Structure formats: C-alpha cells, structure tokens
C-alpha cells in the first residue's frame, strides 16, 4: 500500500489489515513512553489547505510517536500565497525528500492528482466532498472495539450526506462488510443515486430505530446561505440528535460523530455525554489508526510483522 487515497478502492483485506495493526498501535498509545522506532528516518509532511485541529494533530502525533521527522506546512504562510501552483508545491516537496505527504484540500481528487505527479506516498486527510478515509477507518475501528465486529450491523448516517466525505468513506468502507446502511437528512443534502449504496430513510425516527450504530455528521452552517438548510433551530428540531429522538435509540446503540461538534445543532450536549457516545474515544482511536496507515504506507510489502 503506497498511498491511502480512499476506501472505495481499498480491499476488505487491506481494511482488516489496517484495523488489526491499529489495535497493536493502540497498545503503544497506552504505554508511558508512546515512542516506537517504526518511522525513524522517514520524513512526514502535513499539507493542509483547510483548517483542521484534530485531524492534523492526530496525524502529527501519530508520526511523532513513531519517531518520524515531521513538518507541517501552513498554507496561509507558504509560497501558495505567492501564487505557487499545487504541482510546483508537490515538486518542491519531492525535492525536499518527503517520504509521506498527508494532504487535506477542499477539492475532491487532489490527493489523487498529487499521487499521479509524485514519487512519495500520499495519505488523504480529506478531499472536498470525496473521501476522508482515516476518519472512516477510525470509525470502523471504534465500532469493532465496542461491538466486537464490523460485519452485518445496522448503521445509520445522519445529516449532510451530499457534502460529507466522512459519509462517503464510511459508506464505501462499511459496505464491504455486509452492513445495512441507512442515510437520512434534509432532501437538499441527499445526493442522487445514493440509494444504490444505502437505504434512504423517510424520517429521523425511521433512520435511527433499531440501529447498532448512528453516525451523526457535522453540518456546515454556511449551507444555510446556499439554501440547503433553513436555520440551526429548525435543523436541530427535525434532524438533530436530541432527547426526543433518543426515545427511538436503544442504550446499546453507538452514537458517533466525527467532530468538531456543533452543540445544539446536530447533536445535544446531553446526548454527547451518554455512555454509548463514542465521540472522545474516536479521537484517541484516530491516532492508532493513523499510526497503522503511516506504517503500512512506508513499507514496501505493506505487511506488519
């Protein structure tokens, strides 16, 4: 595995390999020193064209825990501001002997574009509305850790499906394991042909009832201006995970959210604090998964020994 660009093309076996390795990596995270030599001598660069705290920090910590030399390029202060093209940035990073580039960009396909034009490994940390593979992998890791399996489950994804790279990666990844996937959100945020990949529920109640897992998505508030949603208040009432809807969700159903959370818009503080909410756990698991991915992308054989 040279690159991790998305889960749509990744095989079931590769996903299992990553999740198994992440389990080992999590034991390292639990240790006092949190340091392994796996990436010693490797140069890992993060290039984020969008703001991010958790994903970027998670990747950086993962690389650092594995002894990589890490560099973080801030687009706001880089030569991008001088008009340098992405292709030129890629060529510069190549000349700077980058081994792994972790990239986030607002445009779908940018990691694929970079991978076509470079010799180093590329990890997609979120591209436009396309994919966020490590987020889905950490979601799958969390589900497996909590429920003991990621197969044959009933999973609901709620919210902005149209713009969500998290939703897409989760759908591609979870679909490989015989899971029943249901989506729900305002009609303006349900993309065409999604019914080819998931059941589209007709109400929030229907969407969440009887599910093993409910993945709630972040809503971008600027969508209101573009006519996708009407107001935060209305969204919360009809599409939010609040106390009312919890009547339809059992105590054993996992409540997940990729964060950062808009409290009182897509989910209430009370729901976030329920014992079946995994939101904080997902963040920790993210480091383990990213350690596994970094390891596999830097090994020619791609197999953890």
């Amino acid at each position: 595995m040279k690159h991790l660009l998305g889960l749509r093309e990744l095989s079931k076996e590769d996903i299992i390999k990553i999740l198994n390795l992440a389990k080992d990596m999590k034991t390292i995270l639990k240790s006092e020193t949190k340091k392994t030599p796996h990436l010693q001598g490797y140069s890992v660069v993060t290039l984020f064209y969008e703001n991010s705290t958790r994903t970027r920090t998670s990747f950086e910590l993962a690389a650092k825990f594995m002894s990589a030399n890490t560099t973080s390029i801030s687009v706001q202060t880089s030569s991008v501001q001088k008009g340098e093209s992405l292709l030129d940035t890629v060529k510069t990073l190549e000349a700077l002997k980058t081994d792994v580039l972790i990239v986030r960009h607002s445009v779908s396909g940018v990691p694929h574009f970079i991978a076509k034009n470079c010799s180093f490994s590329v990890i997609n940390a979120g591209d436009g509305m396309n994919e966020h593979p490590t987020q889905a992998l950490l979601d799958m890791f969390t589900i497996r850790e909590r429920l003991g399996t990621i197969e044959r489950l009933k999973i609901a994804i709620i919210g902005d499906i149209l713009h969500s790279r998290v939703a897409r990666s989760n759908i591609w990844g979870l679909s490989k394991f015989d899971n029943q996937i249901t989506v729900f959100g305002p009609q303006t945020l349900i993309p065409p042909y999604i019914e080819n990949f998931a059941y589209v529920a007709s109400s929030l109640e229907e969407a969440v009832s009887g599910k093993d897992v409910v993945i709630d998505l972040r809503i971008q508030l600027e969508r209101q201006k573009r006519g996708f949603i009407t107001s935060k208040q209305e969204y919360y009432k009809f599409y939010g995970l609040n106390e009312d809807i919890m009547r339809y969700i059992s105590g054993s159903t996992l409540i997940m959210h990729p964060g950062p959370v808009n409290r009182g818009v897509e989910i209430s503080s009370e729901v976030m604090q329920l014992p079946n909410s995994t939101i904080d756990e997902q963040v920790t698991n993210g480091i383990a998964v990213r350690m596994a991915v970094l390891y596999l992308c830097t090994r020619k054989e791609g197999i953890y020994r």
Partner: protein
Amino acid sequence: MILIKNAQIVNSIHDKNEKADILIVDDKIEKIGINIEENPDNMIIIDASGKYVMPSFTDIHCHLREPGFEYKEDIKSGSRAALAGGFTTICCMPNTNPPIDNRAMIAYIKYRAKEVSPIEVLPVGAITKGLSGEELAEIGFMKEEGAIAISDDGKCVMNANIMRNALLYSKDFSIPVISHCEDSNLSEGGQINLGYVSTITGLRGIPREAESIIVARDILLAKETKAHLHITHVSTKESVRLIKIAKEWGVNVTADTCPHYISLTEEEVLGFNTNAKVNPPLRTQEDVEALIEGLKEGVIDCISTDHAPHHKDEKNVEFNLAASGTIGFETAFSVLFTYLVEKNGFDIGKIVELLHHNPRKIIGLSPNVIKEGKKANLVIVDLKKKWEVKEDNIVSKSKNSVFLGKLLTSYVETVIYNGKILKKDGVLNC
C-alpha cells in the same frame, strides 16, 4: 491535375454510393467516370481502392483561441488541426481576448485566416459587447464584415430580455443566434454532471436542468420572435425532447451536438480525469442514446466539434481549477464512424449530412458535393483503419483530448481543398 482512382463516392444519405474515378483540374472537379485515362506526366494519381471519398467537412463551432490565448492554439495551428480531421470550413467562436464583438475583430480574424490558414475560417461574432450578456454587440456591422452567426458561447445570455432582443435584431440581418444553454445559477460551482459519478467522487454536480431550462426558454423566445435559433452542444435527453417539440411547433430552431456527447459518459471522469472535464459535462448512457436517436430522427441537425484546446498546465491541476473542454477536430470523423456507423448502424451518408450538408445549411452555405463542375473539396477516408488516439499524433497545439487512449475505427487519410492536396496518406502538406 489530380486523378483519384477507384473512389467509392459518398455524397449524402439520399445518393447512391458510386464507384468511379475523379479527375480534378485546377480547383474543380472536371470529370467523374469509369476508367478515366491516366497520364502520369502531368497528373498526380491517387489510388483510392477500398477507400471512401466524401465532401470535406464543415464545423460550425470551434475555438481557435486567437487573439489572446495563442499558447493554447492559434488560427494557423487550429486550422491545420481541423484540416487533419477533414474539415475545410470552420467557424470560430468569439470568446477570445479581446472578444470578437465588433467589425474590426471580425476583419482581424478574416485577415489572419487569409494569411495563415490553409482552409476557410469563418468568424462567429458575439451577441453582446464583451460577452457580458448586457448590451447587444453591433450585429449588423459584424455580419457586413463577414460574421456568419452570433454567439456568446462559453456563457449563457442569462437576461431573457437581452436574448429576446438578440433574436429579434438578428432577423434583420438573417444571421443565426447560436445559444450556449446554461443556467449559471444552477451550474454555479459545478464540475461534472450531477448524478451517479458526482455522488461517487464528491465532485460538484451540474443538474441537467441547467441546460434544458435555457433550451426551453430560448425555444419559447424563438417561437415568439420567429428568429433562427441554433442550440449548440446539446447534451441531455430533455433538451432533445424539447427541440423535437419545438420543431413540431414549427419553431425556426436547429441544433448540434458533439462527438464526445454521443460516445462517452460521465464515467470518463472517474479517476479525476481532467481531460473529461467539458462544458456542458459528459452525461449518462441514457443521454447518449437520446442524442443518437435525436441525430437519427433529424431532431439534432448536425455535429460540431466544440474543439476547445487548453495548455497541459491548465489541465494538469486540481479538478476544480482545470479548464473545461476537449480538442475535437482530429477525432470527430473517426468517433462518429466508430460510435454511430459501427455501433449504431448509421449510414455513412448520414455522417456526411451531419458533417457537411447540415452545418453548411445552418450558416447559409450551399453544400459542395462531389459532382462535376463543383469545387474540389473532398476527403479520402479509410473506414477499416483502427488507430489509437495518442498525444504524439495530435496536430493541434494542445493535446487535451478526452479520447486519448481510445481505439477508433476509420481515418481521414487525404484532404483536398480547392484542388490542392493538403493532406496525403496521413501527412499534412501545408
């Protein structure tokens, strides 16, 4: 003198294909007959055994990028590329820099074409000044100078009142209005067709209604004004349906589609292939079939290439930044043959109508068939030759073909224009 031996002549779907020799003297076809006497001393003899000879093609919609974007293409390079594809009359769109929106610009294009182009280049003037969609350009002056149509191609005239006035005004000058149908509010920010592939890739989708809503609007305006509306690069089944209804109503509407819309679908974009980023976007198999049916029934009158050259630096970028468009001159005939004749049973004569008779009719030119006394403007094609589209074989300055890597059947081997052999056995001679 040129003698083409054993030519299988295809003039149109209505004429019987005739096998004969063609004698060309100066710029005209002197004689068509069986076993015309050879005289090697003062004759170039071309053996066309097993080949087809047909009138050279006319393209009513292309981009030559001069002035302003000569790094992509210019009148000379674009004309040579057109010639390589069998086109000897091409109409270039006005979205240059500065735009072709006044008589001086029309004169400039004609002058430059006369200087550097081996074929006939006919300029299309803008509908509105600066392609701004706000104020009508001097349509009368442009027509007087040689504009053959008006269009704000690349942009839609979003203001329905301006479009209505353009249609009304164009009637005084008997000039067709070529409409780029795209509701820019619906297409804003879109990269590809809104549908299965946009959902899969997360690329922003353009709903098909962005096209068909304006097709409907312009048809209604043409119905009211009785002007000649030409709808270009039709890409959706709804548009075909609307144009069919308009023709049944008796509206003066004609339409074209492009080789890529009748052969490829949105799936070409999978893998983020920027060469497949075109505007309007590639649609679905259903649309491809509707367009082919539209061509079969005569709802869509002709094929244009929408040859849209872009430098590789404008394509080898992030998908949203990539320029829209594919080059099209050099693959047009082969794509039509491969996808319409081979796969859909079209008569080869129908292809001649789509690439010669009908486009000429739309812009007011008479057909130039292969008959004695006519200008010797013809192509010799090998309908059996299979070839792969590769960058190395492309004549155009830009190499952004959506057909790169595709295997096509049939090839334009030889082109004769005004009695001169400008391409022979695949090699340009100009």
